[in-house]
């Protein structure tokens, strides 16, 4: 290697030694990277996987988390309860009641699959990590402890600039748009009907008017309508009316 170097640039003897000294000296003047952990808490990145919190109210004991867990560290016990009918003469409903929900963190490998699969957002990541125990059995966190972790779950971090819009927001927006469009269409129909009624009344008053005249104003009324609904729906207004109403059914179910 040293033989290939001389043609490119002449090496000063000892330059390598000097370079080594320079590196260490430069490092000495820089800030150290030591984390003074017990004294100073670490600044964890967003979405840190410290411990899993349980939001009990959302849990329906569907057992998806326990089934998907790769190392079977989630224990769920439950029983069914019968709820009396809500209205007189209605049907009785059965409901799952959670008896035990425990995660054994001595087995957990922090893959986060349980949180991913939970259909009702009952499990959350918390960045807390200081729950080491001297007895391994203590690492099985029961329901109340998992609930305690819930209070340490931070608000979801802000999206990166230019990130894709979250599915929930997109769906909600779509639903809102649809609602607005439906309202606009209703309003337009109502307006058209009103106008038609008014024209009909006028035509009846005229008596002399032919059937061709009656069709003309009703068609001309539709383009004039958009100016009315744009107010409440905002910029999406123009697209709203163009949406065919039959489509709203399936899309609403999708969201």
């Amino acid at each position: 290697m040293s033989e290939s170097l001389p043609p490119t640039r002449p090496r000063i003897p000892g330059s390598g030694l000097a370079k080594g000294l320079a590196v260490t000296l430069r490092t000495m003047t820089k800030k150290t990277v030591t984390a003074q952990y017990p004294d100073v808490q670490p600044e964890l990145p967003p979405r840190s996987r410290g411990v899993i919190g349980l939001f009990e109210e959302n849990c329906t004991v569907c057992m998806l988390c326990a089934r998907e867990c790769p190392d079977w560290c989630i224990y769920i016990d439950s029983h069914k309860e019968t709820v009396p009918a809500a209205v007189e003469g209605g049907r009785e409903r059965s409901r799952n009641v959670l008896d035990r929900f425990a995660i054994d963190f001595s087995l957990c490998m922090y893959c986060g699959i349980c949180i991913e699969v939970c259909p009702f957002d009952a499990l959350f990541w918390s960045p807390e990590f200081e729950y080491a125990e001297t007895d391994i059995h203590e690492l099985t966190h029961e329901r109340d402890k998992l609930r305690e972790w819930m209070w340490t779950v931070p608000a979801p971090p802000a999206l990166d600039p230019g990130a894709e819009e979250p599915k929930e927001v997109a769906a909600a927006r779509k639903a809102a748009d649809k609602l607005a469009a439906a309202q606009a269409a209703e309003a337009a129909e109502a307006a058209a009907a009103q106008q038609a009624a008014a024209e009909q009344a006028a035509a009846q008053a005229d008596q002399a008017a032919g059937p061709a005249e009656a069709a003309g104003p009703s068609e001309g009324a539709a383009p004039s309508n958009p100016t009315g609904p744009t107010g409440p729906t905002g910029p999406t207004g123009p697209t709203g009316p163009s949406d065919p109403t039959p489509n709203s059914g399936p899309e609403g179910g999708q969201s």
Partner: protein
Amino acid sequence: MNDALDVAVRLVVVFVVFLVLPLVVGQTEHKVMAHMQGRLGPMYAGGFHGWAQLVADGVKFAQKEDIVPAAADRRIFQLAPAVALLPYLLVLVVIPIGPSEGAVGQVVDAGIFFVLAVMGVGVLGSLMAGWASANKFSLLGGLRTAAQLLAYELPMLLAAASVAMAAGTVSLPGILNAFHWWWLPWQIVGALVFFVAGLAELQRPPFDMPVADSEIIFGAYTEYTGLRFALFLLAEYAGIVVLCGLTTVLFLGGWHGPWGADGLGWVWTLLKTAVLAFVVIWLRVSYPRLREDQLQKLAWTTLIPLALAQIALTGIVKVAIS
């Protein structure tokens, strides 16, 4: 009576310096090495940035059980740390730190020879430890120590002889009295040779083959624990102090400085010694360990010819001046 008091005070001062300066160097090494590696080093002992870490270490060592291996040569095993440590204490007595008569523990006529002779005795401690431990790693460490000492004693002596020639005396205060600033460029090669050979004699990295922990655990000190091990460590750091002080006195002009040489000469000596100690630590952090054959090659094919060339240069200049 007054004389006895004077001697006692001097000895006490030297002893205190002997106990304090190595600890200061050790603590500096902790901190400097840590920061050069992007770490903080000790932070807890003593409260403020771990200033008392070595005190805590000393307490820890004192509490440890003193173990002598069953197969070891008991008496020599126990004697070795003292043999390693005491010579440095003796050397410290003769190093002058200031221009006045009172700034040296004891004026010795043949100071250079005294210092080098006594420092050579110190290495005997490592050899005794290496042999008496009845451990193959210790034995290897002792062998390497001996080989290294034999190789590096000569260039050290030759470099020191060059200064003695320049000054026309072998007494340390005498050399300092004869010092002029232009000796610095004149004797620079000798200074480098002396410092490098001294580092090798102290077995400091990058010349720490005799204690290479990745190969032979801790060389001659493998079997030691507790206070005796602490004494060996103390000997290493006392050795750094002595080597840096000696290099300062012989090559860097000791208490001579651009200003304030009369009253503040000792400050200059301490300052130069501290800078050299920093360099010792710096070298430890920066360079990997030299292999055994590289060690020998450096001594015999580089340092000794350089030292001889320095002596020749010194002789030529000396004759040209006179």
